[in-house]
């Protein structure tokens, strides 16, 4: 066991809170995010929790949280610090950072920080791309354990159990490695006031994305965003007998 030896980088994204109803803007330019409650992407919360647990188990020596975006993303990083990350880095930009660009930025940070493990959420619940972790692993030529539901750090390797179609798959990855989290990897802790207060003292470094001199311009152009078509209103039936009769004769879904 690499006790106390490994350094972990976790990435966090600020997104519209998962419980907030989504409203598409009238001009079809996007989703309305003004005056809407924002939170840490739930999969990233799981990533932070996993990193902190590895530190609490004496496997990790340091947990560094990284985010990309507007100055307000410092709030998200403070949440990661309150959960237990040691320090944070914000790569500040007002560009629309798409997965490939995010992967390039995280690669640059990984080369500076030399972590043995990078843990990311498998997808962000706003754009639902599910790309950044795999792209980052590709750019770094590191192994990847995506959609992880169990992580066991061993000497120089990590065992990752992945959620795949039809069940689970377990891989052994050489460190350094990239892991992306699935829903059931862990249950993130709740924050207490003392934890939040303590986080204010922890170091948060800010650097501009342009200082990294990378090609991070958006490549995917959004032409429009619309609300999906509403289904016509259904009907209520009063019994199982009526339901089966309707399915047979009206919907004709079975004989």
């Amino acid at each position: 066991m690499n006790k106390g030896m490994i350094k972990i980088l976790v990435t966090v994204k600020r997104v519209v809170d998962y419980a907030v109803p989504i409203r598409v803007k009238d001009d079809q330019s996007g989703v309305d995010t003004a005056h809407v409650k924002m939170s840490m992407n739930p999969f990233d919360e799981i990533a932070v929790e996993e990193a902190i647990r590895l530190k609490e188990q004496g496997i990790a020596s340091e947990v560094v949280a990284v985010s990309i975006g507007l100055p307000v993303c410092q709030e998200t990083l403070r949440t990661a610090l309150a959960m237990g990350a040691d320090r944070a880095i914000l790569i500040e930009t007002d560009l629309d950072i798409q997965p490939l660009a995010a992967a390039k930025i995280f690669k640059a940070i990984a080369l500076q920080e030399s972590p043995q493990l990078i843990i990311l959420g498998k997808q962000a619940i706003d754009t639902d791309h599910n790309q950044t972790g795999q792209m980052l692993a590709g750019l770094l030529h590191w192994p990847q354990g995506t959609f992880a539901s169990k992580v066991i750090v061993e000497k120089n390797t990590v065992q990752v159990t992945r959620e795949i179609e039809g069940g689970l798959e377990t891989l052994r990855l050489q460190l350094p490695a990239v892991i992306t989290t699935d829903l059931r990897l862990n249950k993130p802790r709740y924050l207490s006031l003392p934890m939040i207060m303590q986080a204010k003292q922890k170091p948060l470094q800010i650097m501009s994305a342009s200082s990294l001199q990378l090609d991070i311009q958006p490549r995917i152009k959004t032409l429009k965003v619309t609300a999906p078509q509403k289904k016509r209103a259904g009907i209520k039936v009063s019994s199982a007998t009526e339901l089966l009769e309707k399915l047979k004769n009206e919907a004709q879904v079975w004989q």
Partner: protein
Amino acid sequence: MRILLLAEHDNKKLQMSTYHLLTAAQQLKGEIDVFVIGHQCGVVVQEAQKLPAIQKVLAADALDYAHQLAENSAELIASLAKDYQYIMAASSTTGKNTVPRVAALLDAALVSDIVKILSPDTFERYIYAGNALTTVSIKEPIKVLTIRPIAFAAAKAGNVMAPVETISQIVSNQLAEFVRQELTKSTRPELSAAKIIVSGGRGFKNAENFKLLEKLADRLGAAIGASRAAVDAGFAPNDYQVGQTGKVVAPDLYIAIGISGAIQHLAGMKDSKVIVAINNDPDAPIFSVADYGLVADLFSVLTEIEQIFKDKECN
């Protein structure tokens, strides 16, 4: 214009998703090559040869590719990419694992989980758990795409056998090794290919009760799905989960029982042709997407349905 389409398989059988993917590829009106990466996957290659209107099947059959791990598969795919304008895969757990890595190696943007192809460079995909639909375009010289299989009809196998080209290049994987696989054993249809799905939620109260769903599923020849709440509570295995981060399904008939209908769940099933909701809470959001709603105690409804089927058998 040439398209490289990644076959989805388990070395024994070509998955249905590949047939759906082919329909999507055909809409781009290019020459399609199907790439089978695996080990002792000759049967799959033969099945792929029967895919209609393709140029050829590329076959990379080696021990190093037995588990289709992302590290070496992505490198192999990227090494062939220069001859293609499109690389396409299903947005399954395999496609989602490998294809972004390919895109990164090619410095190409990737459009994932496409539900509609509007033109060779313009696509529709959902964001925010299906609560918004976005139209996007890319100008990349090599366009890397993943396709939501159920959004496209399945192509039918033809009688013409396309030629096979063997890819003998071996890319070994020094970074990751396969340890084991635990697949959920089931004799029921696969969730993503089923015509009928019965799906259960927290309303079942415990794992023992959730088994009642099996009886109904077997009566209907249906697959079983579950809400996140039911999976979290341990009523059903993880891979039963339907929703934004689980499986996205669109069967002919989706019967949601004891599921309240969180937006994340609706994202995974609302494109089903006919939706039935059975729930004792008249205000449950699931009713907003249901064609037929039954406000009732799920246990009495299941008993009633079972009785109806039994009566039928007697007649």
